[in-house]
């Protein structure tokens, strides 16, 4: 019974991740791709060596982009659904939908915003190919650190709650999270490989669009998965009482 609930939530998490991935894909295509194209034009104008095209630009910016973003959505949807199974009823007095949105917000922060503020997304032509190993390690390390510290802060908050009350326990846990992340920012190596003449506005727009993709992904996931999880956990009676939220969604 409980195992079936976990399975149902996991499947819905992956489906919600796929749907949120579609939303993120629209944002990526409309807001992100123009900046990628501009960065590639810059790269072509400033480097003498021309790489041979393995996959054409028109495929990279459509089918390739879709593959990457949708797989990312499904994978994080599945992971978030499993985390949701742990979090449900354990983090505080939150309904299934509120738990989903809260978890989604925390995931956006821990998995994306925390690494992003130290090692932000870079468009093509920013980044030295020789340091790819170091940059990849640092990026995944920052992701892992964000997740571990978010979990630790949640546990700390739960421990402090009986003594300090919910408000101050939460404030203290969030401050502890911020301080530790700040220390990590201070001591991890700086990466700055922006070419000298690269347009600052293009870099800024690219990074904003990268952030918008993640906000769309996690926002969409939190709302959609919350709704699906609520239906698994609180099955509606066949004859629903008159209420504002009984509008049936298209199947």
């Amino acid at each position, binding site marked *: 019974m409980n195992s079936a609930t976990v399975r149902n939530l996991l499947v819905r998490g992956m489906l919600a991740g796929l749907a949120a991935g579609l939303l993120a894909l629209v944002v990526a295509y409309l807001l992100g791709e123009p900046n990628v194209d501009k960065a590639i034009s810059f790269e072509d104008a400033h480097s003498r060596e021309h790489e041979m095209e393995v996959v054409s630009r028109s495929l990279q910016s459509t089918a390739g982009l879709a593959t990457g973003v949708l797989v990312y959505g499904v994978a994080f949807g599945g992971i978030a659904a499993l985390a949701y199974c742990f979090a449900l009823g354990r983090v505080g007095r939150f309904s299934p939908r509120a738990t989903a949105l809260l978890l989604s917000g925390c995931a956006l922060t821990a998995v994306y915003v925390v690494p992003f503020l130290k090692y932000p997304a870079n*468009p093509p032509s920013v980044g030295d190919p020789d340091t790819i190993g170091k940059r*990849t390690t640092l*990026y995944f390390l920052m992701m892992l650190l964000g997740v571990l510290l978010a979990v630790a802060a949640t546990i700390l908050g739960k421990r402090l709650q009986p003594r300090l009350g919910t408000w101050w326990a939460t404030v203290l846990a969030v401050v502890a999270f911020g301080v530790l992340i700040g220390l990590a920012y201070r001591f991890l190596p700086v990466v700055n490989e922006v070419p000298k003449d690269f347009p600052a506005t293009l870099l800024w727009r690219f990074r904003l669009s990268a952030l918008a993709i993640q906000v769309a992904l996690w926002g969409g996931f939190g709302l959609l998965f919350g709704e699906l999880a609520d239906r698994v956990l609180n099955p509606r009676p066949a004859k629903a009482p008159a209420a504002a939220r009984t509008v049936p969604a298209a199947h």
Partner: protein
Amino acid sequence: MAQTVAPPTATTPAVPAKLPLSAIAPWAVFFGILMLILLYFVGAEQGATSVFSGTDVHEWVHDARHLLGFPCH
């Protein structure tokens, strides 16, 4: 926001029941690893490390890798 306590009704219990860890663990281990492998292929394959030789995977997800924030090249 106002601290409104909604009257508990039959359809919306205040706090959802916890799922036992023993029910979550098998799913979490198997699917957790599977999802991480998917993320690896989107985010890092044929960049810093390679399972398959060549650059096909890297080139195919090139734009996604840049826009999702992974270090690409």
